[in-house]
């Protein structure tokens, strides 16, 4: 069947729309950590956009920032979109505590050095937050 030439650029555009738009359906976390905190009666999940969480390694490091924070139950990072989901017990810890822990100094076991300003929270639950 003969087809007009404009079909080709149209298909290319549709491919881009499908690829970019449909990508969210394929999302899986880059890193997931379950912490050994006591179960919460009413757990809450907050969604953060964190500058510095950009690959599996950096997501692991961000997860380590929360390992000693009481009340944090689960950490899931979608590194390619710089997104972090933290599930926590609101009776024991707040979003502000989580933000402070993530943005705190990072100890690098490889170089045995402490690094500052590695992570910066830019958004909390879809709202931009002032950077420090």
């Amino acid at each position, binding site marked *: 069947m003969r087809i007009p*030439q404009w079909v080709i650029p149209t298909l*290319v555009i549709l491919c*881009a729309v499908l690829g970019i738009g449909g990508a969210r359906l394929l*999302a899986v976390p880059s890193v997931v950590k379950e912490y050994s905190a006591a179960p919460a009666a009413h757990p809450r999940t907050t969604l953060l956009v964190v500058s510095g969480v950009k690959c599996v390694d950096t997501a692991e490091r961000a997860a380590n920032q929360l390992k000693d924070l009481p009340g944090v139950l689960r950490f899931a990072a979608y590194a390619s979109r710089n997104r972090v989901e933290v599930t926590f017990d609101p009776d024991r810890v707040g979003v502000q505590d989580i933000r402070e822990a993530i943005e705190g100094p990072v100890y690098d076991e490889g170089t045995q050095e402490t690094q500052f300003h590695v992570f910066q929270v830019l958004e909390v639950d879809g709202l931009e937050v002032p950077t420090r």
Partner: protein
Amino acid sequence: MIKRLRTIFQAGVVLAAIVTGMRFAMGWSLTSVEKYCPFGGLETAYALLARKRFTCAAGELNLGLFVALILLAVLARKAFCGWACPLGAVFEWTGRLGRKVFGRESYQGLWDIPPKVDATLKIVLRLAVVAAVLAATWATGELVFRGYDPYYVLFSANGHDVRTWSYAILGALFLLGALVPLAWCKYLCPLGAALWPFSAAGRIRLRRHGELCTGCGSCDDACPQALAVSSVPEVRSGECTLCLECTAACPTGGALELHLTGVRP
């Protein structure tokens, strides 16, 4: 008209890639150019299947674009390469420049590569690149190809893992691209190799109507992939990007037409 439209497409994607890279490098955006590389989708496929997570900085956008590209290739062959690949556009312009500088009439390149050698190189070299990149990525869990990837080196604005030798490789590829147009795309591009089986089976093809064709060879000279359009009734090569340069160059204006094969009117 279609030629101008394609130039607008190509200029648009190149500009978008440059702006994305610059914005990321300046800290104005969190989105790096590598997030739009469809080959990243294939690089991360093993980690996704085996460990249920993405490799390094690759993510769902890479995978989504790769899946969409396969669907596109099944229908419209390597239209992505000819219309929407920023690296393909830059190398095509380089080949055009080389064609002017060296006074050639076609995109055949400085050397006359025999068709059999050309076909063998396209398969062997590209498969070797795909195998090496995937093996290294899957073994290390890192996007090890970054420093060698001309797309990343060119558009990331001196991104992570880009070294001095990365620019040396990019320069060598540009020089090669001027001597042998689209040498990267034809002989080295791993994405091109991954898409090839789907593209070869692609349903939209160019058909040449023998009764209208004068055999002038303008289509052969215009084809950036240096395909012999004038000597086949239907362009079945998996390398055809449906750029439609051949139809624009055809003086009869009807000897070459697009057909959806396997579907009767």
